[in-house]
C-alpha cells in the first residue's frame, strides 16, 4: 500500500454532484420546453434546435482539436448551450444563420475565453447577440405558432442556401411584446402563460419553463435567488410604473409572462459560470438584470431586452464578486 501524505485543498466533502450530473438534469428539465417548441412551431423548431445543438457541439469539438486539448464534449455543457441557443431563436430563421451563430457563440463566447468555467458571458446569448447584430432583419421575422401544416411543410426561409438572403413567407406574426410596442395591442394572459403566442422557439410556454426551473431548484442544482430576484424586480418596477402613470405601461403579469423573460431568468441568467458566486451577489445580479429588462422594454427602441440585460449583468458579475466577499471563517465580523 502506498503511504504518502496527500494534501488536498478544500472542498473535502463532495456531494457526488458532478458537472455531468447537473448538465444531464438541466437537459431533463429542458426536454418539456423543447417538446412544446416542436409542438407549437412544428418541423421548423425541430430543425432549428437540432442545427443549433449540432453547430455548438461541432464547434466545441473542432476548437478542442485545433488547440490540441482533450475533447470536453463529455461534460455535456455544450449540449445545454446548444439547446438553449436553439430555444431563443426565431422559428423561421435560415438554418445557415443558426449554424453561424452557434459557431460564433461557442467559438468566441466560450472557447476564446478558455472554455467551460472561464466564459465571461453566456455563450448561447453571445451567439444570439451576434446574429441580432449581423442579421437584424431575419432575427425579427416571427412566424405564427400553431399553423395547420406545421408538421408537414417548412417555412420558405428556413432552408435558404448558405450566405443567401432568405425570402420570408408573407404571413408574419407579432410577438406579444412587439405587438404592444409597435401596434399597441395586448395579448390574452392565458395565451401568454400557456405559450399560445408567437416568439422565439422555446420562450413562449412560461408554465413549462417554470416547471423545469422548479425541478432544478428542488434538486439543488440552480440558485433560485437569481430568477426570483429578476422576476420580483420586473414585477415591482412595472407595478410602480403602473401606479405612477396608469395605462402607460404594461401590467406586471404581462411583463413577467411575455417575451424571453422566463427562459432568460430561469435558464440563461443562472449560467453557473457567468453569474456571481455568493448568494448576496446573486440577489444583486438578479436585481440588475430585472431593472435593465424593464428599462429596455419601457424606454428602449427594441421591444425585448432580456438578452442584452443578461449579457450586461454577465459583464458586471466578476465585479459583484469582488465587492461582495464572504467573511472568512474565524476573522473579525
Amino acid at each position, binding site marked *: 500500500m502506498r503511504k504518502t501524505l496527500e494534501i488536498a485543498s478544500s472542498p473535502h466533502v463532495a456531494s457526488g454532484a458532478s458537472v455531468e450530473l447537473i448538465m444531464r438534469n438541466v437537459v431533463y428539465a429542458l426536454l418539456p420546453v423543447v417538446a412544446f417548441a416542436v409542438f407549437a412551431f412544428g418541423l421548423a423548431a425541430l430543425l432549428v434546435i437540432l442545427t443549433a445543438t449540432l453547430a455548438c457541439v461541432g464547434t466545441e469539438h473542432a476548437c478542442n482539436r485545433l488547440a490540441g486539448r482533450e475533447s470536453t464534449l463529455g461534460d455535456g455543457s455544450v449540449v445545454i448551450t446548444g439547446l438553449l441557443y436553439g430555444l431563443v431563436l426565431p422559428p423561421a430563421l435560415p438554418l445557415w*444563420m443558426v449554424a453561424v451563430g452557434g459557431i460564433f457563440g461557442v467559438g468566441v463566447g466560450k472557447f476564446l475565453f478558455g472554455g467551460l468555467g472561464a466564459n465571461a458571458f453566456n455563450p448561447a446569448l453571445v451567439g444570439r447577440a*451576434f446574429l441580432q*447584430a*449581423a*442579421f*437584424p432583419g*431575419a432575427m425579427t421575422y416571427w412566424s405564427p405558432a400553431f399553423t395547420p401544416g406545421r408538421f408537414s411543410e417548412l417555412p420558405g426561409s428556413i432552408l*435558404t442556401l448558405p*450566405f*443567401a*438572403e*432568405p425570402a420570408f413567407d408573407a404571413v408574419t406574426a407579432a410577438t406579444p411584446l412587439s405587438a404592444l410596442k409597435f401596434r399597441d395591442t395586448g395579448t390574452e394572459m392565458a395565451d401568454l402563460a400557456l405559450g399560445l403566442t408567437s416568439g422565439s422557439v422555446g420562450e413562449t410556454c412560461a408554465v413549462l419553463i417554470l416547471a423545469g426551473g422548479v425541478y432544478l431548484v428542488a434538486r439543488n442544482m440552480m440558485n433560485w435567488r437569481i430568477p426570483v430576484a429578476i422576476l420580483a424586480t420586473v414585477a415591482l418596477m412595472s407595478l410602480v410604473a403602473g401606479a405612477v402613470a396608469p395605462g402607460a405601461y404594461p401590467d406586471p403579469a404581462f411583463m413577467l409572462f411575455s417575451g424571453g423573460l422566463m427562459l432568460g431568468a430561469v435558464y440563461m441568467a443562472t449560467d453557473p459560470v457567468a453569474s456571481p458566486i455568493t448568494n448576496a451577489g446573486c440577489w444583486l445580479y438578479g436585481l440588475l438584470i430585472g431593472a435593465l429588462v424593464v428599462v429596455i422594454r419601457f424606454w428602449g427602441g427594441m421591444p425585448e431586452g432580456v438578452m442584452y440585460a443578461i449579457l450586461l449583468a454577465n459583464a458586471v458579475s466578476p465585479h459583484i464578486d469582488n465587492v461582495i466577499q464572504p467573511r472568512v471563517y474565524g476573522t473579525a465580523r
Partner: protein
Amino acid sequence: MSNPSTDDFVRGLWRQNPVFVQLLGLCPALAVSNSAINSLTMGLATSFVLLASGLVISSIRSWVPADVRIVTYICIIASFVTCVDFTIKAISLELHKSLGAFISLIVVNCLILGRAESFASRNTPVRAVLDALGMGAGFTVSLLLIGSVREILGSGTLFGMAVLPAGFQTWTVMILPSGGFFVLALWLLIINRWQQAAERTGSPAAEGAGK
C-alpha cells in the same frame, strides 16, 4: 548615424507593421475601415502626413529645443493635416463627409507622433522619408485588409462594385463599429499565427518580430 537602407522602408510593411504589430493608430483603423474606399483614403491621407511631417521634422531636428519639440511636431503635423483636409474636400465632398472628424483626428494619430519622436527626430531626412513611406504603406495596406473584408461581408461590394452574387445576405454587423473589432482581431489572429510559425522554422520574416 547609420546609412539609409532598404530595411528602413521594408520594416513598416511587415516586421513593425503599425496596425498589426505595433497596434498603433487603431482609432482610425477601427472607425473608418467600414469600406475599402474609406480605408484607402484614410491610409493615403495618413501616409502623406507621415511623409511630409517626417521630412520636415528630420530636416529641422538640430534646431528644435528638446523642451518644445512635441509642440513643434504637433504644429507641423497639424499644418499638413489641414492641407489633407482641404484636398479631400476638394476632390470629393461625399468622401469627406463619410470620413467625418477622423481626418482632423490624424493630428493626434499616435503613429505619426510616434514616428516623429522615435525616428524622424533622430535620423537623416533620407532615412526619415524611407521610414515614413514604409510605415504609411504598411498602415494603408492594413486598413485596406480590414476595410475590404468589412465591405465585402457588410455590403457585398468592394470599392462600391458588386463582387458577390445578387441575393447575398449582407452581414450588417460588419459595417457597425463592432465589426471593426471582429475583423481586426481576426487579422491579428492570422498574422500572429503566421509569425509564430515563422519563428519556429527560423525564417527571416520573423527576425525581430515583436521587439
